[in-house]
């Protein structure tokens, strides 16, 4: 079974079962979902993959759900609105049939997504919840994705699920004012989920791609809903497409970061770029200008350059100026300074890097030192550049990052080093969350 099918269908099935079992029986819904996939893994190797795998999985989940409902009906309460109907054999199967009907489950994933973005749940809990319930990520996979410990993620999920269980029912996406109130939290969670895939530090390559794929799939679900398809959602979708399209060139097969000038642009996903461009157009309707809009425009400018020499750095800097107003963060200022150095030169670059407000918050961010090192190297100050790269290496988050800076240091030691082509560090747009122990 391919990963996409697994992640997509486990989300769909889990969401539908949560509606039947009730949000307080979330674990049961997830168990039954998992049972369906276990059954597939048991049966498909010998019988062959069915013609319609998704339908097979849903049917298997339905049968398992009926078994569980029968076994548990004296012990548990299920979804309050249908509890009585699930108790009687007169109505059990017809009710489950109706509730798992394609039309009925259409909004279930969206309802779960919105429920996960409850303000009472911390943002990292929201993202973990979405990955666990809607994307079939196990605790270990979330830990690998966020470079976090198993126990920290487990604790985070348990806490988040407790809040979710206490909400008694799934978010109702039929009321526009409630929808509008919560949609920005959902957008933010999806953005952070995507960000971890694109800018994250996990060297598990497949996980990085999966995070980006899942972010794309989930924003697609939001766009499919009439209340969800707003200019800001389209802008978020455009960011995901236009960054995500370039991920194959950004990471080496071993998960190492390749900086912009060295990226093989033929590896970019042109279909995603086209989709991102279309969503960016749709985002331009109306009066909303969000930070997602600006980030998407910057990504579009990168994506439209056939070679790094064709990049319109001046326009990019102007957009960073705008982004700084909407999202004042030292990381955005860092990106802006790096872009400015591309066409104004390393002397200006150093001045801008020095002028970053709150730059002390960047002291744990290796790409800050890397940018300083690069400007110094271009000015021939190789000793300073090496020192700065050592500092970058000290605050590096992974062995892979350390190796990367080590190699840069070695390159500097080689003859003819220094005045090379400008290095572009496409720093993340958010400071990394402080990692738990």
């Amino acid at each position, binding site marked *: 079974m391919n990963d996409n099918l697994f992640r997509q269908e486990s989300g769909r099935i889990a969401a539908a079962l949560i509606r039947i079992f009730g949000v307080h029986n979330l674990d049961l819904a997830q168990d039954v979902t998992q049972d369906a996939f276990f059954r597939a893994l048991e049966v498909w190797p010998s019988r062959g993959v069915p013609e319609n795998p998704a339908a097979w999985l849903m049917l298997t989940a339905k049968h398992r759900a009926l078994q569980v409902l029968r076994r548990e009906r004296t012990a548990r309460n299920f979804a309050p609105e249908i509890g009585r109907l699930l108790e*009687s054999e*007169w*109505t059990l199967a*017809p*009710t489950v049939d109706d509730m798992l009907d394609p039309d009925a489950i259409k909004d279930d994933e969206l309802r779960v997504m919105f429920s996960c973005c409850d303000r009472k749940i911390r943002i990292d809990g929201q993202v973990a919840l979405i990955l666990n319930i809607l994307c079939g990520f196990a605790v270990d996979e979330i830990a690998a994705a966020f470079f976090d410990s198993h126990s920290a993620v487990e604790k985070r999920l348990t806490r988040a699920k407790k809040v979710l269980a206490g909400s008694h029912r799934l978010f109702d996406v039929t009321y526009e004012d409630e929808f509008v109130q919560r949609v920005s939290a959902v957008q933010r969670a999806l953005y952070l989920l995507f960000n971890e895939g694109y800018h994250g530090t996990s060297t598990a390559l497949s996980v990085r791609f999966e995070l980006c794929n899942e972010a794309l799939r989930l924003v697609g679900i939001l766009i499919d809903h009439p209340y969800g398809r707003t200019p800001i959602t389209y802008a978020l979708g455009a960011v995901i497409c236009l960054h995500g399209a370039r991920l194959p060139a950004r990471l080496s097969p071993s998960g190492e970061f390749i900086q912009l000038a060295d990226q093989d642009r033929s590896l970019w996903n042109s279909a995603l770029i086209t989709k991102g461009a279309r969503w960016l157009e749709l985002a331009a309707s109306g009066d909303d200008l969000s930070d997602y809009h600006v980030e998407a425009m910057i990504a579009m400018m990168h994506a439209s350059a056939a070679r790094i020499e064709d990049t319109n750095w001046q326009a990019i800097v102007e957009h960073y100026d705008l982004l700084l107003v909407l999202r004042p963060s030292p990381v955005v200022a860092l990106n802006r300074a790096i872009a400015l150095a591309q066409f104004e030169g390393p002397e200006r670059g150093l001045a801008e890097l020095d002028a970053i407000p709150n730059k002390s918050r960047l002291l744990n961010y290796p790409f800050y030192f890397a940018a300083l090192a690069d400007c110094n190297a271009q000015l021939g100050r190789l000793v300073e550049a090496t020192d700065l790269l050592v500092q970058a290496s000290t605050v590096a988050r992974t062995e892979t990052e350390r190796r990367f800076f080590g190699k840069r240091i070695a390159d500097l030691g080689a003859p003819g080093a220094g005045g090379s082509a400008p290095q572009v560090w496409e720093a993340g747009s958010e400071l990394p969350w402080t990692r738990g122990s």
Partner: protein
Amino acid sequence: MSEFLFLYRGRDEAATSEQMENTMRRWAAWMKELSEAGHVITLGHPLQNSGAVVRGQDRLVIDGPFAEAKDVIAGYTLIKAKDLAEANELAKGCPILDVGGTVEVRPVMEMPARA
């Protein structure tokens, strides 16, 4: 409010599986209606045709019930209604009546305490 038991008889054995599916839907719809109107205490269950009959002082166990198909109890529901008249009205909605079956409506007997 009093409680009444509905006993259904006359399940249509000759139905095709498609007809049975339709019938199940109609039953579920009727029961959902009863439930939403606040009349249901226990929706109950459909019953399998065969089973056993335990009889007499000797506690004889025999296969059964071997009554005529139209007499075998097919299922039950416990409802509450104002009186027998209302209970009868509610019973008229039962889909089994359209296939020649019957609904027996029996009031629950309240047992007195010791004198």
